[in-house]
């Protein structure tokens, strides 16, 4: 009974209070399983006894959730900023009144693209539905030291867990690499997927604390993005120690590891994704055109002052 009323309460609240897009929020009972050991996480999930207690991570159909539920415990600073400022500004900045329709191909016509290109989604007309949105952030690390001893991976798992506040999922090698002495199925890395409030908290921390401390990092390159609205960035091992959680307990982590962060957005082009991320204050390098224009402008500007 308790679980039913809780579900009802959550579903009833799903009118604007909660994140808009369905992938961020799942209206399910807010209960989770925590595995005892990080490395045995995958195995222990299979073994976990099926208890009909309401404090288990089960949907009414008995399906066990793979991921911890997302709690919305307060207003998120960056999400509010997104709704009050970024959304409107992107709408104005990217508005195109005349929409050029994508070329229609008949069924069975094979589209051949030159080189190593892939098919890109067709641009859509400007509308309030098409404003790009941040869906999730992936934090991922791969540790080569884990090949010699899988216990070396624990340090990386601990570090990623500390900076994200989520239990990472261990990644096993899909195939072996003979030169590295890597065999198929060995634990080689870990990954956390952040959504909802945790995602915005992590982004906030990254932008306000970590990135300003990275010396001589010029910002993301002007061509950042994978062409379908996702932006990735890599960090050296030294960047891990810039996170406040690790900075204060630096000695507790025997091995620092480099890691990657991927911002998943609903943008259709690199340009839109960069626009969105720069709205969240992620620094971008100036494009070559801008730099050239600045250099050209400078002498004339000085001359006019004199």
């Amino acid at each position, binding site marked *: 009974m308790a679980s039913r009323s809780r579900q009802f309460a959550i579903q009833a609240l799903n009118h604007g209070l909660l994140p808009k897009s369905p992938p961020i929020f799942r209206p399910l009972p807010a209960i989770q399983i925590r595995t005892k050991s990080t490395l045995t996480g995958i195995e222990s999930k299979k073994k976990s006894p099926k208890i009909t207690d309401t404090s288990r991570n089960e949907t009414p159909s008995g399906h066990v959730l793979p991921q911890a539920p997302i709690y919305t415990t307060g207003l998120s600073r960056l999400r509010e900023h997104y709704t*009050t*400022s970024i959304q409107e500004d992107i709408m*104005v900045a990217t*508005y195109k009144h005349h929409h050029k329709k994508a070329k229609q191909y008949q069924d069975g016509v094979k589209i051949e693209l030159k080189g190593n290109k892939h098919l890109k989604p067709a641009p859509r007309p400007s509308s309030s539905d098409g*404003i790009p949105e941040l869906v999730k952030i992936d934090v991922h690390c791969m540790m080569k030291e884990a090949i010699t001893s899988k216990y070396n991976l624990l340090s990386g798992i*601990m570090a990623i867990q500390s900076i994200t506040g989520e239990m990472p999922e261990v990644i096993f090698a899909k195939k072996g690499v003979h030169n590295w002495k890597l065999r198929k199925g060995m634990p080689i890395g870990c990954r956390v997927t952040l959504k909802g409030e945790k995602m915005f908290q992590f982004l906030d921390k990254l932008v306000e604390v970590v990135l300003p401390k990275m010396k001589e990092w010029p910002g993301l390159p002007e061509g950042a993005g994978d062409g379908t609205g996702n932006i990735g960035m890599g960090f050296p091992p030294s960047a891990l120690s810039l996170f406040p959680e690790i900075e204060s307990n630096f000695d*507790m982590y025997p091995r620092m590891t480099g890691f990657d962060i991927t911002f998943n957005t609903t943008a259709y082009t690199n340009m839109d994704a960069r626009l969105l991320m720069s709205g969240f204050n992620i620094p971008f390098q100036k494009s070559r055109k801008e730099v050239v224009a600045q250099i050209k402008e400078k002498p004339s500007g000085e001359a006019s002052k004199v």
Partner: protein
Amino acid sequence: MSVVRRTQVLKAVAGSLSQTIARRQIQALPARFAASARSFSSTTNAYNAAAADAPLKSNISTTSSALVSSTKDMIVNGHRVVAGAVVSRQPLILRDLTPFEQEYFNYQRNLERKNASPFASEFYFKKGSIAEKQWRQVDAERESAGLYGTLSPASAESSLGQDQDSDMTEEDRIAALEAKVVFNDRITEADRKKDMRSLERALARTLYLIVKKPRDQHAWQFPQGGVHVVENLQEAAGRELNEECGSNMDLWFVGRVPIGHYAYSHPKGTMTKSENPTPLKGSKVFFMKAHIFAGNVQIDNKEVVDYAWVTKDEMKSYVTPEYYEAVKDMLSDQ
């Protein structure tokens, strides 16, 4: 919700623009982020004349070679083209929660804390160390202060006094007092004084700049002014702001497309210039969006006698109903 309406506004604006402006010109503009008025094609004689001598960057084909001063107002189809500036100050603090939201977040916080994996204190703190003791104390304080959402604020206050441990020394207590974070008030001095000219007011809302012109009717409006034949809408809006409100503002124009549009006809007997043989039908105002980051307005009491930073709701009491009706959809509710 408001974004949907804003899309409609943008569509209306662009539709209105394409009535007055030749279509093929504006088509190329958004790609370059330049809805420049200077790329008007030859729809009017006045513009044709101006195009030849003006220092234009865009490609305009014209056969006329008459000289026109660059300060001439742009007139299209008998309407004066006017650029308005919607200067906004974004919210500085998070909005107030409704009681319902407060309850909901409280409930979620409880759930989160209940279901969180236990904190590995033995990993971070050596057993029996000072750091561990301090952490336990802070945790207990947070628990009692209701930061985890377990207690109501009233009971938290009463328990906070009792919670001061007996083994806490006098020095610890002084250090705790010094380290205590003091929050600023959400209601500022400007709010209390009802100082409409201050940018420090209504921190949780979006503020918009409106100015008062020295006249009886239609006195309050967004800063606006006629577009010259050689400039685009954004340049015109920036120049007018500079003239009316001074240069002591750090502004950023969001895009080069207008966010709103307002057409009005002139009252008879006004605005008929001797240099203009055909009388004007009216004016069309295109609003450009800008953000203010620093500074404030400096008025010179000639063009503008007063100004105010108002929220959308407050604007209703300043401007005329028809003006409010025209601009309300491009303003933020929050």
